[in-house]
């Protein structure tokens, strides 16, 4: 099996890019809606007929419905969550690769990934996952990378993320 090394961080980056593109697309759609309905309302005002107030009210109602269906708020939330995940993973990769002492890595890892008070609540499974993750990830910076460490990185990270979500983190 081929050693994939950066697969986890690549996926997080792809997730962030995907969310960013979706936000950008939705924002462009909102701008297009603004222009479309701005022009429609301007034309109705210029015509100034008896039905103008009703026409404008209908346009505004249509505009509001279409704006709600774009739901850019939900996409902002997704983008934020993808960004947090990517930032945490980047920081963790950097920490693990920059330190060779396991205790320093664990300590720094706790400070980066967990918020004050969270780490004291976790059980031994999570602490083992942190240790395994750090150990296997560091193997990539040495000559010890193997198929086993390749599997342990995403598996132990999945345990860590599950715990973070249980603390209400949108990661």
């Amino acid at each position, binding site marked *: 099996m081929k050693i994939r090394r950066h697969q986890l961080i690549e*996926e997080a980056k*792809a*997730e962030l*890019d*995907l969310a960013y*593109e*979706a936000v950008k697309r939705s924002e462009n759609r909102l701008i297009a809606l603004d222009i479309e309905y701005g022009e429609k309302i301007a034309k109705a005002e210029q015509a100034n007929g008896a039905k103008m107030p009703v026409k404008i009210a209908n346009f505004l109602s249509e505009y509001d419905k279409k704006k709600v269906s774009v739901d850019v708020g939900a996409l902002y939330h*997704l983008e934020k969550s993808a960004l947090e995940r990517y930032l945490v993973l980047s920081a963790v990769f950097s920490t693990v690769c920059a330190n060779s002492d396991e205790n320093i890595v664990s300590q720094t890892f706790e400070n980066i990934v967990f918020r004050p008070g969270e780490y004291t609540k976790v059980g031994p499974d999570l602490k083992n996952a942190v240790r395994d993750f750090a150990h296997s990830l560091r193997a990539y910076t040495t000559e010890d990378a193997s198929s086993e460490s390749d599997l342990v990185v*995403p598996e132990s990270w*999945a345990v860590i993320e599950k715990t973070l979500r249980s603390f209400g983190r949108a990661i």
Partner: protein
Amino acid sequence: MKTCLVVDDSKVVRLVARKILEELRFDVSEAEDGQVALDMSMERMPDVVLLDWNMPIMSGIEYLRALRVTEERKRPVVVFCTTENDLSHIQEGITAGANEYIMKPFDSDIIQSKFVQIRVL
């Protein structure tokens, strides 16, 4: 309305893909790993599957191999999504029974043109 099952362990990817596919008038369902996807497929076989590769519990390729040996008459079109662009990886997916692949990150235009190419649009 055609059905599409989005299989990905990332909630962000699933929701963005759902939005894109709904705009293309697909009836979309989601699964967070291969095992859930397989159970859903056995219950109601989708027309198209958008399949992530690296997932916990059951990976994309394990799901695909299991899907292709089922006795179901309906044979969904499977498009796998990957961040890895090396040829052997892509070849592995096609050999396992995928119809096509797209690279992550994808967007609406990429999905649309790929779906036109494989005639599901």
